[in-house]
């Protein structure tokens, strides 16, 4: 070791015989070795030392930029489509020019390449391929199929029509009951986020979209997240993940995400302008038919906007919802009766409910319904279609621990359901059964009320273990499942063992006599 040090200093200096003592050095110096021997040893030791050196691993630090959202057109077509077209044209031109003189040479090269051994790709090339858009799109599609295949023990190529028939045969529902089916939770995206809205897809009834508020524990993650879950397959990860810069309070149309593009950020977005909404948009509804539809949104400052999905840069019409020409209504919930595109009901922060219409001589707020003692959290219009028209009935839930049943023809509630002991956060009629609705409250309770059975207590009730407050409840379009979102980012799916259609017809004739004429005895 000592000799070693001596040699290093010798190599540095031109005169190797008496190297100066190194300042602050711990090791002692030896002087009795022949300089020439030292020189020889120096080289070999030095050489060995050099051979011991090698390259270390690369340490990298990577922080992703915040995606800046900016749009200057009303509709944004994907940029990559344009660019690739241009590139293709250019390539074609170049190919034609080169083809003449170089064709011979190219043939030779090709032959040579075929004879060459395939060389391994460098790290750079690998990364390039992995990040290319073709690979990304292929990968996105195939990982979904693979995940489903891995999670599923049944046939993943099963057919819709076949599945529905099977379910109906096995359904022994003789009333309403709640049984736990699934829990949707994503470690990365659902954690520490409150569920703000749920919606089932009309086109694919097994798809459910849930929107999430911001994650306060992770300030650099996007503020708003929407996940699309699939109840058909057993895989436990979301089908699609979408990000948004602001917390999402109602899903998913104020910002339009295009499933087909591979970006995870919104494709279109309404601008924040005085012409549209400047307050949080809590209610979003699509009304109309599949081909001719409008998006209606209402914000908490009482402004209602109607949008066309083709042009989100400005609303088609706006209206201030004002009752009796005084201050605007702070709307927290909105619902359209089935089949109606003009008249609707809204619930407000003050606890009052209003009917309103979009067009006509009485456009705007029509009537006021008083009854709740706290802000209205959820409002749902009767939706089951049958021989008798119940579309004038709607139910509301509120912070005052009650759910109330109303008719648009009377401005006092027809009935008040008072079985809850906490804020009732959401309520929704069953889309198929005329006497059933679901309600969720802040104690983690999911109630299923069947008005044919009992009006004092819910017919089926379940307190979801481990859940805190339940924020949203949504029936699937078939009425067989109920999706519940809680304040910790979890989506619970419950099967309701829904009754068959023919039962419904039998019940309808009995129902009106009990309710429509019951307003004199209505409870507050």
């Amino acid at each position, binding site marked *: 070791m000592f000799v070693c040090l001596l040699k290093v200093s010798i190599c540095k200096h031109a005169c190797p015989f008496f190297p100066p003592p190194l300042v602050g050095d*711990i090791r002692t110096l030896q002087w009795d070795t022949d300089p020439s021997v030292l020189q020889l040893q120096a080289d070999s030791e030095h050489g060995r*030392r050099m051979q*011991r*050196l*090698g*390259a*270390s*691993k*690369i*340490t*990298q*630090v*990577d*922080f*992703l*930029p*915040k995606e*800046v959202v900016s749009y200057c057109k009303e509709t944004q077509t994907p940029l990559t489509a344009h660019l690739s077209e241009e590139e293709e044209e250019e390539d074609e031109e170049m190919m034609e020019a080169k083809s003449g003189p170089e064709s011979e040479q190219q043939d030779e090269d090709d032959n040579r390449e075929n004879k060459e051994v395939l060389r391994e790709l460098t790290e750079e090339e690998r990364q390039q391929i992995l990040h290319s858009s073709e690979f990304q799109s292929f990968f996105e599609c195939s990982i979904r199929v693979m995940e489903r295949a891995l999670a599923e023990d049944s046939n993943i190529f099963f057919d819709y029509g076949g599945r529905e028939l099977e379910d109906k045969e096995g359904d022994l529902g003789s009333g309403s009951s709640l049984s736990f089916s699934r829990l949707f939770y994503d470690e990365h995206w659902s954690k520490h986020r409150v569920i703000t809205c749920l919606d089932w897809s009309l086109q694919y009834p097994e798809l459910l979209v849930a929107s999430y508020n911001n994650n306060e524990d992770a*300030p*650099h993650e996007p503020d708003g997240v929407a996940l699309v879950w699939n109840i058909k397959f057993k895989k436990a990860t979301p089908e699609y993940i979408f990000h948004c810069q602001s917390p999402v309070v109602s899903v998913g149309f104020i910002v339009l995400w295009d499933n087909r593009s591979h970006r995870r950020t919104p494709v279109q977005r309404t601008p924040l302008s005085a012409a549209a909404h400047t307050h949080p948009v809590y209610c979003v509804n699509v009304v109309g038919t599949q081909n001719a539809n409008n998006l209606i949104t209402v914000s908490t400052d009482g402004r209602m906007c109607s949008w066309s999905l083709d042009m989100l840069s400005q609303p088609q019409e706006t209206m201030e919802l004002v009752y009796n020409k005084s201050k605007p209504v702070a709307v927290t919930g909105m619902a359209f009766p089935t089949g109606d595109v003009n008249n609707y009901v809204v619930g407000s922060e003050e606890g009052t409910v209003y009917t309103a219409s979009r067009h006509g001589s009485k456009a705007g707020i029509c009537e006021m319904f008083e009854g709740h003692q706290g802000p209205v959290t959820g409002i749902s219009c009767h939706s089951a279609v049958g021989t008798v028209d119940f579309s004038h009935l709607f139910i509301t839930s509120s912070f005052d621990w009650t759910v109330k049943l109303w008719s648009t023809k009377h401005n006092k509630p027809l009935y008040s359901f008072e079985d809850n002991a906490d804020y009732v956060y959401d309520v929704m009629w069953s889309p198929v059964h005329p006497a059933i609705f679901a309600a969720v409250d802040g104690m983690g309770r999911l109630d299923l009320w069947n008005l044919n059975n009992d009006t004092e207590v819910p017919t089926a009730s379940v307190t979801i273990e481990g859940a805190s407050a339940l924020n949203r409840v949504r029936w699937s379009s078939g009425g067989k499942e109920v999706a519940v979102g809680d304040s910790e980012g979890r989506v619970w799916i419950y099967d309701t063992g829904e009754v068959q259609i023919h039962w419904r017809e039998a019940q309808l004739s009995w129902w009106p006599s009990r309710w429509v004429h019951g307003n004199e005895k209505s409870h507050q």
Partner: protein
Amino acid sequence: MDEYQAEEETAFVVEEVSKIIKESVEAAIGGNAYQHSRVNQWSTSVVEQCLSQLSKLGKPFKYIVTCIITQKNGAGLQTASTCFWDNSSDGSCAVRWENKSMYCIVNVFGLAL
């Protein structure tokens, strides 16, 4: 046996160095928000603190300490580094620290004497 002991005392211990870096960063910029006027003194104090703690370890190493403080403004950041050294005795340690308004990246390279 002496050799082994000698090796432990003269090896680059990543955990130890990492701990020193984290303490220095916390002490220097702990609960502060990014301020351009003070960032200068923060980065120098981080580097000086790290270096003095490392030299107090008494190991026969040469140290190189770098510190990067970036404001969180939506920009992306990418750094990379690699070394040509003796992999058995030399080492490096990188610590990434962040709060709501800034990132701090400290790199320490230790080269055995």
